[in-house]
């Protein structure tokens, strides 16, 4: 935002871009079996299969998912003026989980238009939960002042999340051991994909969602000094709120349908980046897209190598990092 510091922020952004590219090139080469870059270029059949069909899709999905979760987290934190807000605050993830759990409990394993029934059900659950939250907040707002209020949105999000969690527990109680195991594994969140179908599904959502958030950078900046001042400068705050919520929920819902809920990325990465590049969304939004992607790809690299050949679901790893990070945040803030 200011001319001073613009240079430093530009440097950080360039370094993040380099890191992103480095992860894209190096991460597919590392795993339970190390593959040389030369072998891939030379067209060695085993190396090519491992890199092109197994590892690269997974790294691409991690880069897209991490970037989307981080930039969505930036949007939510600014919108709610709350450092604890994250992409799942309004119940997108619990809605998706409910959809997935219903499919795992009642549906035969099948596909719809090439996507697993679980993914379709969880995407529907994510959209349903968001629609319910926004609809409730809309009704409450219309009764009061017209327009959706952030406080009502947060409360409605908590209420919908809690209800969905309760139904999930109830369905788990009704399920047999195999079904319950698959439900729990789904909710751990992971990036195990083979081939490009899931990547091709996620990427358009992520690109479109990130583009909208980037285009709204001036408007999001205005929210940093409060909604009243923003409105006075010509920001349609109510419309901005619905636009940011709608776009991020679609993007995150599409993502969670494929990966399951991967926690804390949307919380940790924006906080770290705010310290590095400040709060101006001109720098913060692209930094989140690059930094979040690289962060999740590195986490996934660790998840599939530290206990190789076993693969820890990456959602478990990010959750393990998340708790201590929160404590650090609390202590560091006080200083």
């Amino acid at each position, binding site marked *: *935002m*200011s001319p001073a510091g613009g240079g430093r922020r530009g440097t950080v952004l360039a370094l993040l871009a380099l890191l992103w590219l480095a992860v894209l090139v190096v991460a597919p080469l590392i795993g339970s079996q190390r593959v040389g870059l030369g072998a891939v270029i030379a067209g060695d059949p085993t190396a090519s299969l491992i890199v092109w069909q197994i590892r690269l899709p997974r790294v691409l999905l991690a880069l897209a998912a991490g970037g989307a979760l981080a930039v969505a987290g930036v949007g939510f934190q600014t919108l709610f*003026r709350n450092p604890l807000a994250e992409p799942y605050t309004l119940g997108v993830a619990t809605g998706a989980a409910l959809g997935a759990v219903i499919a795992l409990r009642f549906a035969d394993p099948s596909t719809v238009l090439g996507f697993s029934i679980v993914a379709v059900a969880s995407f529907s659950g994510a959209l349903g939960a968001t629609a319910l939250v926004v609809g409730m907040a809309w009704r409450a707002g219309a009764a009061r002042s017209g327009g959706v209020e952030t406080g009502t949105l947060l409360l409605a999000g908590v209420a919908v999340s809690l209800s969905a969690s309760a139904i999930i527990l109830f369905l788990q109680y009704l399920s047999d051991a195999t079904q319950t195991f698959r439900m729990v594994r789904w909710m751990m969140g992971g990036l195990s994909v083979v081939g490009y179908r899931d990547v091709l599904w996620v990427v358009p959502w992520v690109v479109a969602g990130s583009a909208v958030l980037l*285009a709204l950078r001036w408007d999001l900046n205005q929210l940093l*000094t409060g909604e009243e*001042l923003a*409105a006075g*400068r*010509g920001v349609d705050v109510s419309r901005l709120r619905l636009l940011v919520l709608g776009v991020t929920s679609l993007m995150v819902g599409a993502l969670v349908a494929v990966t399951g809920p991967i926690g804390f990325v949307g919380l940790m990465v924006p906080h770290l980046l705010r310290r590095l590049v400040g709060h101006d969304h001109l720098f913060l939004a692209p930094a989140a897209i690059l930094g979040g992607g690289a962060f999740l790809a590195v986490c996934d690299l660790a998840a599939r190598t530290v206990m190789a050949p076993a693969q820890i679901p990456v959602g478990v790893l990010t959750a393990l990092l998340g708790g201590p990070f929160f404590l650090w945040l609390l202590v560091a803030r006080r200083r």
Partner: protein
Amino acid sequence: MSAGGAASAATTGIADAPLVRASGVAWEHRGRRIVGPIDLDVGAGECLIVLGPNGAGKTTLLRLLSGLLAPSAGEVAWRGAPYRDLSRRQLARRMAYVPQIRPARVPLTVEEVVLLGRYPHLGRLQLAPRPQDFAAVNAALAQVGIEELRRRPVDELSGGERQSVYIAAALAQEAEMLVLDEPTTHLDPRHQREVVSLLARIARGTARTVVAATHDLTFAALVADRLVALAAGRVAAIGTPAEILRPAVLEELFASRFRLVGDAARPIPVLSLEDGPEDGSEEGP
């Protein structure tokens, strides 16, 4: 619009029109009338102060005049053009609003906050602020006299300094009219004096029109060209400081006794404790 005579009348109407004209403006909330109907003109270049007790509808009137609220009845017009025909952005290039309530935590420096005032002039596709945006920021910082605070985080400033920062942001908006809600509330006398003298400089030293709501009578007396007294959402009295700042008018408005100090053209009311109107039981000496 159809007849030639009507068109020419409309043209002269716009030329003669005040900067802002509110006609029959009212605002209702949950079926209860908060403000209005009010007829009020704001002349170009004047400093108009809205006076009134808590709950009189001062903030609502300011929000109506700034286009932040759409009136339930009547209309507000800028040089003859109704607000509803102007976009929020167009309105924001014409007037800058400085609200009383602002968030406690703002993670920005002074310069960054002032640069936020450039929003109505920024294009969606513009990658970064342009040189003229930074020039407007520098001019605003200089006019307010807070250039040395430029790099300081806003959260570290005193209340008075912070008020100056938001006034600077409004100046950077390069709007013809400045609308301020309770600009001196919660400030100690030194910072009150700084803000009052800053607003007096803006009102008198520039072509800018200033509209402010307050119940700070000293502030009102020192800067106003014209005063509007608001009571229960209606205009109770309107006129020059000498006409409005009279003990009888003020007693009616605030249910308190006042005495005047200063000269007759610009009297300054001071609260008086000699038997107030509600409390006649106490015997004076």
